[in-house]
């Protein structure tokens, strides 16, 4: 895959602009929620400065995503994190404390940047899994699981992230 062959820190100016644009939209929405339209010019200014700062900090390249797939992913995430919370609450409250902690290694095939970051962070909210460590090359994840079979949800997450960023379709690989 092209993404991992390119140097780790490389990010083109165009990609940085995409990143800045996305950050700007999010910040502007946050401003709207905080202040409504009061002082909108100040909000625009703050969102601009903030998004440029965010763009300078961006380390991975932004990946194209589709709005309807983001919604799908959000739904998946909500359901799974709900299941995760219920599961761990049930285990904590049971008298016999049914947990069986184990470490697993998981090879991340996702490209660097948003997909991989999303993977590492969301794993901790799925039922029974926690991202416990990452190898120094960033390719291998150590997952801590509470019960046997929990790794299945990691596989599902992987597939979901691929779909979100259109990584399973052939044209995405040419980009």
């Amino acid at each position, binding site marked *: 895959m092209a993404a991992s062959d390119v140097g780790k820190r490389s990010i083109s100016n165009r990609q940085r602009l995409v990143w800045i644009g996305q*950050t700007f939209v999010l910040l502007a929405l946050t*401003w709207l929620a905080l202040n409504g339209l009061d002082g909108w010019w*100040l*909000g625009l200014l703050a969102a601009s400065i*903030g998004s440029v700062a965010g763009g*300078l*900090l961006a380390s991975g390249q932004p990946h194209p995503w589709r709005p309807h797939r983001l919604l799908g992913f959000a739904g998946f995430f909500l359901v799974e994190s709900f299941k995760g919370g219920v599961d761990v609450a049930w285990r904590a409250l049971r008298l016999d404390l049914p947990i069986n902690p184990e470490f697993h290694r998981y090879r991340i095939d996702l490209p660097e940047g948003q997909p991989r*970051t999303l993977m590492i962070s969301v794993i901790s909210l799925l039922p029974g899994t926690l991202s416990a460590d990452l190898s120094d090359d960033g390719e291998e994840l150590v997952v801590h699981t509470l019960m046997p079979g929990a790794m299945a949800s990691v596989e599902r997450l992987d597939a979901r992230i691929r779909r979100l960023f259109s990584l399973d379709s052939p044209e995405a690989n040419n980009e």
Partner: protein
Amino acid sequence: MSVDLLIDGLLGLGMIVLALQVVSERTVLRSIILFVVFGLVMALAWTRLQAPDLALAEAAIGAGVTGALMMMAWRRLLIINPEHSADTPRGRSAVAIPVALLSTALVATIGLSALNIEPHIDTAGRVALDEMTDTGLGNPVTGVLLLFRNLDTLLEMAVLLIALLGARAISAPARPEEAAVVETTTPLVGALLATLVPLSILIATHLLLAGTNEPGGAFQAGAVLAAGGVALVLTARLQPAKRPGLATQLAVTAGLLAFVGIGVGIMAFGETLLALPGTWAVYLIETAMMVSIGLTLALLFAGAPALVGRRA
């Protein structure tokens, strides 16, 4: 209401227990962690006392910046010489407990008797609240800071600057490895930064704008900016530099300059010293103060006269 009382009691008890732990923990690091927790409980206490301005300041400065400063100083000691930085938590002092008990009794007596005094009708705060309608400012705290006690606020900016200059005078600038803490391969830290830093800029601006009408203001906004800066220094995105450039020097003194410039300049128009000519001046001074406070705190944190960016 009993629920209120229970909550207050719990917060008060929490403050006492945490304070005890802060001073008596076995290791300095644990004391520092508990001090941060103590600051958070203080912030909750301020909200119970109906002072959200102070809750904001306490969370950002009292817990956040002070805690990070302490942790950083501790780390510097370890880097300079790991052997001797350890300590025994308790020294010998025969008078410690009696003195502590005595001061508790004294403070409690003063506080409780002050509570029982017939409250004055015409306190400065009442007067300030009455005058506030003429100023165009909705938040009395900002009004007091900039309109009624503006000399204090001006001198406070000077104190911050003096602290920075003093720290610079007495200590050698920190080397890069003394400032940065996290240099990891985890992309999560980068993601956190890319979220927190833009948001800290937005929230600082929000607090600045909000400060004229509701809780917020230059100090809280500056502290939020400083928190973002601290995160950048911790992760080596910003590194200590030897010499401050013109931009740094201007930004550090901006608050003071704007205050003095407008406050003295107004005398040319026959006004009294530091009489601010309108809301626009308040906005201008507040913005300049925010920038100065944020940068000064970040520089104090990094222990360096200037910071340079490093491409991630």
